[in-house]
């Protein structure tokens, strides 16, 4: 069945570029491509939401354009800005040439003086790029509304220049960490995928792919430890990125098995526990118990 293969093939393409994902995520991404809709990814921090876009841009062999959202992000930093210094210079130069005033205005508000910011850049590419709009929940609601307009029409209007139509529709990936509720309208425009922590087998594959020197024994222990850690009620659960950090740091500490050197393990836990409360909550006894569980 060719259609089944399409998802499998896409999944293995992602694997080839170092991103190991579930089949369901692969099928969502295939849909994103065929429906040409943006996809909204939600999930805990560190489950690899942002990483997906990097992998996608490698699979599609296209540019990755990233727009990091923050409070107060406005059109000038997200869409376009005029190159004021050059404009001023041009105005000075044109002054001497006795040009008509409307011509001067037309000249200095031409594309030559336009600085493209991520959104404008994304819709004016020859080949469709991957546009990552990271942490959309951090941007203001007003910006979200504007984004909605861009994502539905794929055109941007610049008062001085007119409307710029998309030359190619980008693959849009939005990520959100849920610091605030997104508008229903935006959610409706997008496909949705909730990215969960990977299960044991998948996380093991991720660790072995990303930290190839680690060896199967230690990687099993590391992943088992982290998976158990996520079940404890921590304030901040370690994500996949933390697992990878920890695996790499154990490797550099020459640990070959978790029961080798319990002190070294305790010291290296700074990679996993990111708040004071969490590192206090996890006493030596608890750590030894967790280690014993996975050996």
């Amino acid at each position, binding site marked *: *069945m060719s*259609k*089944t293969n*399409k*998802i499998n093939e896409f999944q293995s393409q992602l694997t080839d570029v170092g991103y190991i994902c579930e*089949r*369901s995520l692969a*099928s*969502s991404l*295939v*849909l*994103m491509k*065929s*429906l040409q*809709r943006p*996809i*909204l990814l*939600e999930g805990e921090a560190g489950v690899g939401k942002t990483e997906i876009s990097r992998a996608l841009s490698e699979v599609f062999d296209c540019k990755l354009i990233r727009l990091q959202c923050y*409070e*107060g992000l*406005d059109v*000038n930093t997200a869409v376009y*800005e*005029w190159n*004021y210094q050059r*404009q*001023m210079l041009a*105005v*000075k130069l*044109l*002054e001497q040439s006795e040009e008509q*005033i409307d011509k*001067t*205005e037309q000249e200095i508000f031409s594309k030559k003086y336009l600085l493209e910011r991520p959104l404008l850049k994304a819709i004016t590419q020859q080949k469709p790029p991957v546009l990552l709009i990271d942490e959309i929940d951090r941007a*203001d*609601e*007003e910006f979200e509304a504007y984004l909605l307009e861009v994502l539905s029409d794929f055109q941007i209007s610049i008062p001085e220049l007119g409307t710029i139509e998309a030359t190619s529709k980008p693959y849009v990936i939005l990520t959100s960490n849920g610091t*605030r*509720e997104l508008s*229903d309208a935006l*959610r*409706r425009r*997008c*496909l*949705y*995928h*909730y990215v969960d922590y990977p299960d044991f087998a998948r996380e093991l594959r991720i660790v072995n792919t990303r930290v190839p020197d680690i060896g199967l024994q230690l990687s099993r222990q590391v992943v088992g430890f982290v998976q158990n850690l996520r079940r404890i009620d921590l*304030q901040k659960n370690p994500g996949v990125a933390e697992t990878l950090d920890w695996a790499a740091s154990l490797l550099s500490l020459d640990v070959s098995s978790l029961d080798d050197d319990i002190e070294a393990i305790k010291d290296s836990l700074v990679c996993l526990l990111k708040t004071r*409360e969490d590192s206090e909550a996890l006493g030596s006894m608890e750590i030894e118990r967790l280690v014993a569980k996975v050996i």
Partner: protein
Amino acid sequence: MSRDFLSEIEHSSTAEILQGRLIEFIQIARNNGYQAGISEVIDAQEVAHSLNITHPQYLRWGLRSLLCSNQNDWQRFDDLFDAYWLPSAKQNYRTESVAGAPVGKRESVAREAEVNDGEATDVDQAGQGEGDDAFDGGALEGASGQESLFNADFQFITDAKQMSEVDDLVERLAKKMRRRIIRRQKIQAKGRRIDIRKTVRKSLRYGGMPMDLAFRNNRKNQPRLIIIIDVSRSMSLYSYVFLRFARGIVSSMRDADAFAFHTRMVHITGALHQPNLTKVKTKLSLISAGWSGGTRIGECLDSFLNNYRHRLNSHTVVMVVSDGLDTGKPEFLANKLATIKSQCRKVIWLNPLLGRPGYEPKTGSMLAALPFIDLFASAHNVESLSALEPELMRI
């Protein structure tokens, strides 16, 4: 219960049946609070086309991506999908037939439609009715649920789960308010940074010489909010909600303070800053432990003035949350409130009792205080709290 979806596809070549069932499923999803409009119906056909749909797993994933729009939708999608598309499998592990019977009925309707050459309207109407019947019991949360919580008087919310939802709502509201209040920078005639865009525009008039500068500046007059909460017994139904509200305010506004009073006044900003909610609770209960009965608002405001007078300035809003049931002297309270009013921009008094039908502020203290209050509002539900927002912006 003869044929399920899979065999239906194998046996019939009519794509119409599948189409009809997809439409029906989306309608049921809509009745269950999913955001699904016409464009989703069209895209669902595309999903069916571009994924291998005889494989139920792919159809599930495809429709899940399409129809869900938040985590809650995501988590309950599987049940909805199973109940509709895999009725036989569902019956195996669901003993009480919440969805069983209607599903059977729907099956027969679908077959009927098949006989009638798949008349779309039949299927549509059937879907509509079924959806309501089948899922009303279980899955109605989402938008409508929140709507009703929005209007519910805090005192009538007894369910612990609802209460915690209201608390979350209130805290979010507080954070949202602040977002609106400190909006973006605005362009002004004078300011700290030059707004170059506007400046260039203006310079055209002078042949490109930037004579007339435009500036941008932070919106000034960000209010400093001081919230003073009555935690006496008569307020016990409301005080926890307001503590959550205060927590939202304190954690999101740079310059806010919270106080709680009963017989004494305590500064609780520090306690509210705890990230862990249970710790906040224990800390607050430690603070209030050992207080004897009787509310003395006047004395408490007096101690506020003695210790925290420096916090009052021309852009401070003082928000008192109390029912005004006071055992102290009304004149004393009025006197203190007058002092506070003279030193701050605005005094807001929130009285949860005001939301009750027929209530009029008749207690001596409340009457004495009224002349010094700029805004006397009720705050018995989330809606009335959110109505405060424009008042806070206009400072």
